């Protein structure tokens, strides 16, 4: 019934199947909405945060999500500035994912702060010394950039194109893209960095505190580079995921390999710098502040294994894989490594936020533990659900993957074999009943 909206030449499941797919996400969305209501209307005592654990999973996941969303700016940077044309294949998808990650993060932040209605004070009387000010400014600006970048994707829709004015507008915007990409890159560089700075400047938290290079602590640069490493891997994984769910080929293998390679290059650089940074911290920064670094790892659950996992398992290992063109050939390794990279970024953001707060500072402090309340979890699931829905809708009615059309005409066959081969994994990504319904509706497919 919504065929008139679906881009020409693209195959989409029936409207019914699509709605069915949306139901669970909508449910999640409403649960999250309720949790958000509780926190805003009644107060943050609905969370399990406290005066000692003043940041919880919200900040942790915000940082993670923003790092993963970095794919948007980095792809944009490679495509428009460094003119890596092959990335045209994923740029739209990257932009949508970026938009979702950033808008989601900002939304959660607005629930996280105690007086969201005053958030604008930061623009009114900003403290220019505060990393959080930098973050706030860049985040808001970049969110606007992403919105502008999102518009042409929407305008490409077959019906909207009927309207000449829009067509012109979209065309104009396209000429703007390189500029926007430039601004985006610039902004992202700063807020990704400031997010790292957020913790690096915490003189009062010797576990997180780092020496300054110029005006920024080393974590500033580590965050930028790690984000640039994770972004492409995440684009890679998400695209692959969409292929699995929709059982279509969406981009050419080279694109994957290229993304993997970029990720690998950034990652190896990161691993190197991170190691140097850690050594300096262990041998001078931390003891200088009165805290022998090994003490941090003497505490319960957070042993030195964390450090190892972060740098080797989730760092060096995937980097080497991604850098070897032979291994990149095999999807198992390519995506496996990509997955490890994303785990790595997640672990790093976890260490910076949660572990930092769990560790004692005063000599008579205890090691603290914290587990999120259902409201905190639900609030974050809201973002996941919202992302899923926004992405699904955009995927259905706009052209996220320019190569989709050609790929699925040339080797529609292939894609069917693909299905046969990957049917199992498919059902892993979606509830069985959806798969069954798909087959049921398969007949109605044109």
């Amino acid at each position, binding site marked *: 019934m919504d065929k008139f909206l679906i881009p020409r030449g693209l195959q989409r499941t029936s409207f019914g199947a699509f709605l069915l797919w949306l139901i669970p996400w909508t449910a999640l969305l409403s649960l999250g909405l309720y949790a958000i209501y509780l926190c805003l209307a009644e*107060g*943050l*005592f609905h969370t399990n*945060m*406290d*005066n*000692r*654990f*003043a*940041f919880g999973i919200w900040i942790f996941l915000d940082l993670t999500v923003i790092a993963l969303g970095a794919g948007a700016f980095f792809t944009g940077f490679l495509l428009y500035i460094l003119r890596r044309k092959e990335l045209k294949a994923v740029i739209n998808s990257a932009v949508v994912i970026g938009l979702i990650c950033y808008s989601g993060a900002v939304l959660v932040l607005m629930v*996280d*702060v*105690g*007086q*969201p209605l*005053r*958030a604008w*004070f*930061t623009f*009114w*009387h*900003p*403290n220019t*010394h*505060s*990393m*959080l*000010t930098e973050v*706030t400014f860049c985040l808001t600006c970049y969110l606007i950039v992403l919105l502008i970048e999102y518009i042409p994707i929407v305008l490409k829709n077959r019906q909207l194109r009927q309207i000449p004015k829009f067509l012109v507008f979209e065309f104009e915007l396209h000429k703007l893209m390189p500029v926007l990409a430039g601004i985006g890159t610039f902004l992202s560089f700063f807020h990704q960095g400031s997010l790292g700075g*957020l913790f690096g*400047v*915490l*003189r*009062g*938290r*010797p576990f997180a505190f780092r020496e300054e290079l110029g005006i920024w602590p080393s974590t500033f640069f580590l965050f930028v580079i790690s984000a640039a490493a994770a972004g492409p891997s995440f684009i890679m994984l998400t695209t692959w995921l969409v292929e699995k769910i929709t059982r279509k080929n969406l981009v050419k293998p080279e694109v994957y390999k290229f993304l993997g390679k970029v990720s690998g290059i950034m990652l190896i650089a990161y691993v190197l710098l991170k190691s140097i940074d850690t050594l300096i911290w262990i041998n001078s920064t931390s*003891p*200088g*502040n*009165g*805290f*022998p670094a090994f003490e941090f790892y003497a505490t319960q659950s957070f042993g030195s294994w964390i450090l190892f996992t972060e740098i080797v398992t989730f760092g060096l290992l995937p980097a080497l894989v991604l850098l070897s063109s032979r291994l990149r050939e095999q999807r198992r390794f390519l995506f496996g490594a990509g997955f490890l990279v994303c785990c790595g970024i997640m672990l790093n953001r976890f260490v910076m936020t949660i572990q*930092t*707060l769990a560790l004692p*500072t*005063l*000599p*008579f*402090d205890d090691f*603290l533990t914290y587990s999120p309340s259902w409201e905190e979890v639900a609030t974050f699931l809201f973002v996941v659900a919202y992302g899923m829905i926004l992405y699904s809708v955009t995927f259905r009615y706009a052209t996220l993957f320019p190569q989709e059309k050609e790929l699925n005409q040339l080797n529609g066959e292939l894609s069917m074999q693909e299905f046969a081969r990957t049917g199992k994994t498919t059902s892993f990504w979606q509830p069985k009943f959806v798969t069954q319904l798909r087959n049921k509706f398969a007949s109605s497919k044109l």
Partner: protein
Amino acid sequence: METTIEKVYKFGMVIDLDKCNGCGACTVACAVENNIPPALEKMNKRNGLTWLNISTVSNGEQFPKSESVFVPMFCQQCEKETPCMTVCPQNAVDIDPSTGIVGQVPQRCLGCRYCMTACPYHARYFNWWDPEWTEGMKQQLNPDVAPRMRGVVEKCNFCHGRLHAAKQKAASQGSREIDPVDYVPACVESCSNKAITFGDLNDTTSPVAQAARDENSFRFLSRLGTEPKVYYHSAKKWVRAMAEKSLTRSHQEEFHG
């Protein structure tokens, strides 16, 4: 009015841990003075509102050798690189150059709690709940101190209400200095064990400055270099050893370098 006070102060405290018997008078006096609401059912040491909290620290020995001290902990009024102030995105924390007191402006605070993660002394408190008093108690709030609303951070400000009153009194008498007897924080006043000495650290002859220089005086986390203005004192070796578990600066470093 306040402009007529010309002297530059550096207010600080020395807390004698050997004198403190954990009676809690200071905590209660602080709450009464600063309109801190009583605990609601679910409040505890981690999510409550006590600008002045007190921890019990044990010497780790076996009974009957086991001893403990009480450590009153509140904003240490960090002088350098004031951690909470530098991180606040919207200048809701300020340090008054004429008193050295680190102030908190709840009306500007958006409750991001970044300052709380920044404070090494856990001296900042977030209003997780709306404040609640019984109807009668509402009429008994200190008229000099604005109550805070849910969602903002608050902390010890060396009883700003009392400082303000003392300044006004001095100004009204045309004096350019605050009379020390006019400015005594509630916790200091309430401590019948005289465990807290308060005053101007700039005035080397003041009791507080002298007590701070005592060789048994120390500051927690002194190596962080935030130059807190609250000192602690104990003649007990094990207490000072406890304080040095995170390496502190030697007495020499503290005062001559």
